[in-house]
């Protein structure tokens, strides 16, 4: 039989906030991809504005973790969970920032929709959405099957981002007039690549919660 611990209500609160953070960031990712695909500047603005909510939640989660560390001295799976909550929170907050950075670069692309379509940025967006829906499931359920899926999908996205970047550079060499917009696209691609990198971090953090093994830097 398991005891109910006063501590458990704090852990429940933390788990709830981390899931909330993840679903908010998920919305940001979905919205910014939609805004990018449709050149929807109003939606891009909404993404930029929503970041404040995410930043506030980030601070709340940090404070709650500090409080649990200081007052409950967690050990074993509790300890691993709280360490991971801190890291996941940090990763999610960064993903949120990247969504904002992408949102800020949508306007300069407006007159170059043909180029954007040729580069298949939309496909990267769709893959990132699929990736993030697995991240959301992983953070909710701690099911390591999703961790594997996240890692695989993130690798694919990184690979494609590199291919697009290389195409972009070739285009830039031939058409000097697109250099400014191309620089923006390169940055956007880089941001998608980093979002997938942070998603891998989250998968590694959940593996650490479940198994106690540090899997990062292992290939």
């Amino acid at each position: 039989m398991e005891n109910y611990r006063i501590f458990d209500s704090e852990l429940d609160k933390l788990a709830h906030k981390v899931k909330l953070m993840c679903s908010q960031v998920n919305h940001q990712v979905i919205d910014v991809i939609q805004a990018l695909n449709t050149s929807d500047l109003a939606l891009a603005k909404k993404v930029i504005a929503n970041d404040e909510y995410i930043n506030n939640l980030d601070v709340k989660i940090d404070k709650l973790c500090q409080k649990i560390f200081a007052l409950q001295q967690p050990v074993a799976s509790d300890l691993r969970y709280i360490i991971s909550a801190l890291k996941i929170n940090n990763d999610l907050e960064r993903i949120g920032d990247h969504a904002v950075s992408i949102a800020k670069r949508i306007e300069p692309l407006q007159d170059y929709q043909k180029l954007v379509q040729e580069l298949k940025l939309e496909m990267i967006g769709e893959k990132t959405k699929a990736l993030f829906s697995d991240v959301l499931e992983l953070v909710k359920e701690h099911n390591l099957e999703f961790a594997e899926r996240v890692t695989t999908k993130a690798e694919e996205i990184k690979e494609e981002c590199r291919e697009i970047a290389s195409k972009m550079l070739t285009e830039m060499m031939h058409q000097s007039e697109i250099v400014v917009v191309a620089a923006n696209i390169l940055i956007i691609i880089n941001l998608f690549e980093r979002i997938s990198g942070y998603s891998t971090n989250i998968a590694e953090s959940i593996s650490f919660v479940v198994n106690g093994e540090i899997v990062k830097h292992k290939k």
Partner: protein
Amino acid sequence: MILDKIHTEKMFLYYSEKVALKDISIKIPEKRVTAFIGPSGCGKSTFLRSLNRMNDLIDGVKIEGKVMIDNINIYDKNIDVVNLRKKVGMVFQKSNPFAKSIYENIAYGPKINGINDKKQLEEIVETALKNAAIWDEVKDRLGDSALGLSGGQQQRLCIARTLAVNPEIVLMDEPASALDPLSTSKIEELIVQLKEHYTIVIVTHNMQQAARISDNTAFFYLGELIEYDKTKTIFTNPSKKQTEDYITGRFG
């Protein structure tokens, strides 16, 4: 290389018919701090006391299996229990200084072991008090009654008294559980220093204390040794669910 100072093999202990320790096999390394944790009645103190045969004093206690110290079974017939307890000293939960001066508390053991030279005794007293990190607090009042010391000082005096007869192993049964946080931290610091020269085995209910000071931790439950591993493993990723439930307070 780290040697095993103590090891037990398939050790059982019975109080009359009732089995209190079941099949305990453990290797305790030399010059390390090993902590025993577990809920009340799990057998950890019984096991600690069996390591210097303190249980001999209780009627109806029967021990099976091997309890080896330096590869000698301490329950062999030819073992001199007085010598064993000199080699394996013990510190208890409640400090128990003699109603004598500070000096006499320390000199008592060496004296009954035949040391009478005043200068030699003075040296032993000073070294023991220094090793127990209490010398600076008592050096100017060695003739005062030990009972006038604070609880934390009395406990360090008892540790000094244990060290004065030159043990190799020091068993501690919740040595800091009756002390305030500052005295507790002095005792903990002392334990960590002592492992340079002694093998320390400590029973504690304070899990954070076990985590802070021990190298290895053994978790006992219902007379069995459930898990024994490096302390950092026990407190970050224990392999048994019972250990996890106990250290996280989920035990019910």
